């Protein structure tokens, strides 16, 4: 990286930080002497965030939320990629199943939570299951599209050189479908975050959502706000982590793009 480019990069980061920093400063100053019970001073919220979440309740509530999120999302990705690949490889299966998939996926997952709660009861199984169920669709449908739309020349390549099916799948089809798969994974992360919190608001004995609900019931407004801010921070952190994962998964694809530019 040249010096000129590093300066530009620093400048860009600076620009990105200006607006959030200004907003936070404005909030801080405007709320400094607030006596409104619903809008406590930001100072108080930050203090609560520190005392409550870092790290008194982090292990007991934030960690379970993140663990459920991670397991549920991982299940969604594995199931989505496997089923999506099978359906993507068979045009007939895809044709038969697609209307059903589109229907199931367009049912708002939130509407299915009461049923899930009835069947599975309060507990981690409920959380993980509903996360996996809600987050699987974008991965599955995108994988199906990606696998189904692999360049016909690559299909010919695999066939004419008699490359075994397993190798074709691992070395040709899945890498070719990877940009689609990653797009699906990205969408499913944000869905999974929404579902984990919502499911905790409905039925849980710990978790960030559970603590927010508890704080609301006890009129601990600063704690509610602190929980929301924590979620924002975690969401941002997950996004950064996902970008790292994407960076690894799409290494070669990115290089191709660089060349074409």
């Amino acid at each position: 990286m040249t010096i000129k480019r590093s300066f530009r990069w620093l400048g860009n980061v600076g620009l990105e930080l200006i607006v959030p920093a200004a907003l936070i400063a404005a909030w801080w100053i405007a709320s400094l002497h607030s006596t409104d019970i619903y809008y406590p001073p930001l100072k108080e919220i930050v203090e609560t965030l520190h005392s409550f979440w870092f790290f008194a309740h982090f292990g007991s509530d934030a960690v379970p939320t993140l663990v459920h999120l991670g397991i549920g999302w991982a299940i969604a990705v594995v199931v989505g990629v496997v089923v999506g690949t099978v359906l993507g490889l068979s045009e007939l299966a895809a044709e038969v199943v697609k209307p059903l998939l589109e229907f199931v996926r367009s049912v708002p997952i939130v509407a299915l939570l009461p049923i899930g709660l009835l069947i599975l009861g309060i507990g981690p199984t409920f959380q993980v299951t509903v996360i996996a169920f809600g987050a699987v669709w974008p991965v599955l449908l995108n994988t199906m599209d990606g696998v189904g739309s692999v360049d016909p020349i690559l299909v010919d390549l695999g066939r004419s050189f008699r490359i075994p099916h397993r190798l074709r799948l691992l070395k040709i089809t899945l890498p070719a479908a990877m940009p689609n798969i990653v797009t699906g994974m990205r969408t499913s992360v944000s869905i999974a975050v929404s579902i984990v919190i919502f499911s905790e608001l409905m039925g849980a004995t710990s978790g960030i959502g559970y603590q927010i609900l508890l704080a609301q019931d006890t009129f601990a407004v600063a704690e509610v706000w602190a929980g929301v801010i924590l979620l924002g921070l975690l969401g941002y952190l997950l996004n950064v982590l996902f970008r790292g994962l994407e960076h690894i998964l799409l290494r070669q694809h990115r290089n191709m793009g660089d060349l074409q530019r």
Partner: protein
Amino acid sequence: MTTVTKTHDATEERHNRPLLSLQGVTKRYGSPAAPLVLEAIDLDVARGRFVSIVGPSGAGKTTLLRCMAGLISPSSGSVIMDGVEVTGPPSALALVFQDYSRSLLPWMSIRKNVELPLRSQSIGKADRRDRAVEGLAAVGLSEATDRYPWQLSGGMQQRVAIARALAYRPEALLMDEPFASVDAQTRADLEDLTLRVREQFDMTIVLVTHDIDEAVYLGDEVIVLSGSPTCVRKRIEIDLGRERDQLTTKSSSRFTHLRAEVLALIQRDRAPAQDATA
């Protein structure tokens, strides 16, 4: 003694029969009422020959090649490879695709691209590597083995595709307009490279092209196809000798004569169609 004679006969027979033979091949896509793309193609490719197939644009050249490669099956008639009817891609054939940029895998190094087809056969890791290195050396890309396809020029990418086909060690190479999208100089280089590897590996080559100069320059014989539905218009022996040279061969009067003959056949074929639409 008898067994030896038998073996000898068998070898003889094998040498006399064509490596690849198309017998009454027709092809239509879809319903039996759909128009014919190929109409009763009879065509023999003898072992060790370089056969150029040329035809007007819109003729079913690629369809014909895909039938030969066992990627699609003919609607009627049969494709026979070395005495055996082709029902799927035969192991003795390797394809060089027209669109090199799409036929190489961008997520693999050049060497891995060349090695991939070898992984289907029971070849050891070291052997695979050797064959890939040999193939890449034959096309002059020994230095580029660890680079990626998108780091190479179009001409180099097509050389990788040729190396991949060579490392597969087929008896015949099928090339589908392999030099259609490179510049003229690269194209001439690739043509000569093809002639060189053909000598080096003693390969049978079938080249499909729309370029008449290329067909005549490279081929031992040129098969001229008609417009649609496609059939074989004529087989022309190219008696320009085994050694070809971009300058002397292409400026010889014999070359000019053969080129004119092929061109006349193709133009004659196009004329009635144009009259009909006029």
